[in-house]
């Protein structure tokens, strides 16, 4: 039997030596995962806004076309904002990657099944929506390939990258990011834009 990927290991691997990557994380486990990998001023973990992570990534990618932007989210969060795949597919941001950690469950509400566990194919949806590259990641080799794609510079792709990473649904220790949204926003903008512009 093949070993299923563990979400923290996946995120640690993707964020290790993260270059100048800008990171947005969907609420719940993905926000804890990016924090467990090391809290960073250029990480924007969400505490709400369910269904909005990919669109925050698009707005950020359009505002910062020279930077790579990574959205790390969960299957439940992505399923709530599926329409955003259509928007992202149509607008083709070459510097945006969306990584869905798919454990096929709503982890924060008692591990109820999501529809990805009932056959819904997110990679197929992303492809149909016109994302330049959409991949299923199920093992270490796929994951290495994904990391290379996320960090490619410039116009290496003709649009956004989408990855559905199949991960286990084991319970992991909570590693919570700061909860104050104003703080998270300001530290991100100050780090990215400099305090003069960020606080103007």
């Amino acid at each position, binding site marked *: 039997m093949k070993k299923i990927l563990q979400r923290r290991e996946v995120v640690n691997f993707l964020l290790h030596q993260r270059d100048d990557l*800008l990171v*947005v994380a969907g609420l719940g486990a993905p926000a804890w995962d990016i924090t467990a990998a090391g809290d960073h001023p250029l990480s*924007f973990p*969400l*505490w*709400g*806004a*369910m*269904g*909005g*992570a990919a*669109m*925050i*990534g*698009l*707005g*950020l*990618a*359009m*505002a*910062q076309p020279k930077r790579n932007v990574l959205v790390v989210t969960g299957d439940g969060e992505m399923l709530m*904002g599926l*329409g*955003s795949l*259509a*928007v992202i597919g*149509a*607008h083709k941001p070459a510097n945006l990657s969306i990584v869905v950690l798919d454990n096929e469950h709503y982890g924060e509400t008692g591990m109820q099944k999501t529809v990805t566990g009932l056959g819904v194919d997110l990679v197929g949806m992303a492809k149909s929506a016109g994302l330049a590259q959409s991949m299923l990641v199920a093992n270490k080799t796929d994951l290495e390939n994904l990391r290379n794609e996320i960090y490619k510079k410039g116009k290496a792709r003709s649009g956004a990258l989408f990855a559905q990473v199949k991960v286990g649904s084991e319970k992991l220790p909570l590693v919570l990011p700061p909860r104050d*949204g*104003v703080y*998270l*926003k300001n530290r*991100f*903008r100050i780090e*990215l*834009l400099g305090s003069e*512009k*960020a606080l103007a």
Partner: protein
Amino acid sequence: MKNSNQSKPTHWSEPVHSLLREHQIKQVAMVPDAGHANLIRLCEADKKMKVVRLTSEEQGVSLLGGAWLGGEKGILLMQSSGVGNCINMLSLSTSCQMPLVILITMRGDHGEFNPSQVPMGNATETVLSAMGVLVRRGDTHEAVVEEVAGALHMAFNTSRPIAVLIGQKVTGAKDFRKLTH
């Protein structure tokens, strides 16, 4: 704001487009409404602006949150029926104190003919206020321009979401039965 030789007021969209340029608005996110058609055309023709075609209005709230994180200003255009779609996403703007300007053309307002537009139209201001969005309203072309000018200034200087409602007296109540002739 009257033209010098006639009584018809200048349409709000041209001065509002100038205001958007003045405030360096880069991302124009929208689910279209007939009342916004002229402004959308002006923004599409403007090389300094990127028009983002949403499939549902709440996407604009999150999109422009991301734009602000990245140092770009945006504006969100929708009709009042889209406000209901935005309710939970507005928590991003309020809890992070993100500046957000929403231009909302009203339906279910003065002279409406479609019964299904009335409930959301009637609730628009209440719903926005309940979520912590400041609400301003213009019922003449001149007032719309003035309110948009104030909202842009206030939203980006005081980091908060502000909606400007454009009344149906300005956009005109549509009647599909007449539009088809």
